[in-house]
């Protein structure tokens, strides 16, 4: 039973991170109809920035020290860490703006497939910067709670689990309010009927920019919370894991429906539950794939859902292309 509760907590925590990542995809897709394949490199760049800022007390590629950083030999306290997180998210939003301006806006009107390929090109173009910034191996993200855990009735819960759930809740609430804000309403209008939105005087370019800014910030938020202690490369931003990890979110958004906020959250939790439980239990019963089940099962779930509901659990039935 202890194992079960631990497994469930892990699934919910991972599901929360998937949900954040899913929201990132959904916002960008809703606003611009583009599936952002650059999410891996982009989110990793943001996580690295966080690590360099708060652990190395510097700036990537620049010979400055971070004036806000914790004193030598100390890790940042919670408040200081959150301040840095907010700064990094703002920088991430800025990166989203630049990407939109440089690579997406000039492509408006081109086939969506071409746009998706452009984002894939970005993924590859951003990676060398990440490589250069990391030098060699994984880096710590400098969380104040490090690898600390809570013990409840014999079960052990890393504090990072709760952090992930809180981050996802905040992300969800932020997106919820954004959707009802002036620009959120404008974005949904553009998604529904771009020409009619233009006829209302909505500046479609600005809507694209906001979608990318918000989407990039969410991607980085997800990556940062995935770089904490219990997750695969021992709580670090890693070149091996992070870029690939983002593609594991693909089943999440396809399951939830590409353009649905509720779908991103539900999809994240469902996929994570299947993934974690398959890893925990299926692997014990048979030795054929070992831990491989946790990788395969999410895609199987996605496949089954797609057969029954091609537009996902919550997606708009007919996705319009204007």
């Amino acid at each position, binding site marked *: 039973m202890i194992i079960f509760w631990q497994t469930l907590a892990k699934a919910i925590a991972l599901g929360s991170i998937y949900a954040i990542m899913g929201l990132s995809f959904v916002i960008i897709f809703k606003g611009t109809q583009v599936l952002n394949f650059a999410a891996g490199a982009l989110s990793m760049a943001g996580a690295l920035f966080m690590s360099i800022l708060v652990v190395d007390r510097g700036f990537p590629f620049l010979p400055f020290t971070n004036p806000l950083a914790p004193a030598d030999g100390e890790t940042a306290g919670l408040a200081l860490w959150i301040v840095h997180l907010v700064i990094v998210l703002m920088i991430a939003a800025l990166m989203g703006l630049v990407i939109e301006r440089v690579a997406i806006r000039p492509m408006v009107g081109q086939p969506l497939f071409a746009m998706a390929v452009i984002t894939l090109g970005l993924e590859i173009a951003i990676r060398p910067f990440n490589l250069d910034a990391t030098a060699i191996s994984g880096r710590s993200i400098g969380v104040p709670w490090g690898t600390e855990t809570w013990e409840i009735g014999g079960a052990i819960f890393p504090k990072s689990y709760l952090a992930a759930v809180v981050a996802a809740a905040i992300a969800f609430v932020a997106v919820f309010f954004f959707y009802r804000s002036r620009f959120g309403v404008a974005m949904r209008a553009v998604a529904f009927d771009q020409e*009619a939105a233009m006829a209302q005087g909505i500046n479609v370019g600005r809507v694209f920019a906001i979608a990318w800014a918000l989407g990039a910030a969410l991607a980085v938020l997800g990556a940062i919370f995935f770089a904490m202690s219990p997750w695969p490369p021992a709580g670090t931003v890693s070149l091996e894991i992070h870029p690939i990890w983002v593609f594991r979110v693909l089943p999440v958004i396809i399951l939830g429906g590409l353009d649905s906020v509720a779908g991103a959250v539900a999809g994240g939790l469902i996929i994570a539950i299947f993934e974690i439980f398959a890893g925990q239990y299926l692997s014990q019963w048979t030795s054929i794939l070992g831990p491989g089940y946790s990788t395969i099962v999410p895609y199987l779930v996605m496949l089954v859902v797609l057969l029954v509901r091609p537009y996902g659990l919550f997606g708009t039935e007919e996705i319009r292309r204007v």
Partner: protein
Amino acid sequence: MLEVANLEVVYNEVILVLRGLSIEVPEGNIVALLGSNGAGKTTTSRAITGLLDNHEGKVTKGSITWNGKDITHTKPSQIVQSGIAQVMEGRRCFGELTVDENLATGAFTNKAGQKKQYERVMELFPRLQERRKQLAGYMSGGEQQMLAIGRALMAEPKLLILDEPSLGLAPLLVQQVRDVIKELNADGMSILLIEQNAMMALSIADYGYIMENGKVVMDGDGKKLLGDDDVKEFYLGLHQGDDEDSGRKSFKDVKHYKRRKKWAS
């Protein structure tokens, strides 16, 4: 005052749709723009409001001037900001947005006046008040038309372009749309009313244009056009006397035929 002078519009670089169209909408007037299917009415509206780009269309000749300023190649958002709003053909409400949210999109360029205009719209269309939180996609055609008009009013326009607002509406609703247009005009708004329903449009228009194949083929005072036999015959099919020719093809044909008759007699 809106002036469209010698406008030529081409789609996809080859399809010439407007061939030297000239119309005027003087301040405070209701101007009707009539014509059969495919005459180029919607294209005219797109050209004025900067939406041709969306259809691979281009203005290749002529100009559009709004209160003395050339707006021929201006962005749609700036055109709305300068005081021209439109009710698009087919309503085009945002189906996945609520009534309130649809209205909010109309005020995108008019944050300052949003509250005031919202109250004005609710006063004009009390039905919308009851449906404020409903998704626009689930409303009836008539309600959607009211919403589309209300949405355009949120921008607080000086000139309102309506593209076939009576399309698909029951007579009573057509009447209501007509009354609303009159009321808006009485408050000083200029109106460019694109219609197939010539009788409705001309009954309230100060001036009317009849276009065909991308050109104006006849124009004149609303009352005069309304009384014109050619217009009547073409739009209402009121065949008079010894008219045995039933193969009416276009307004021009009617006119030629008539003229020939007059000349021959």
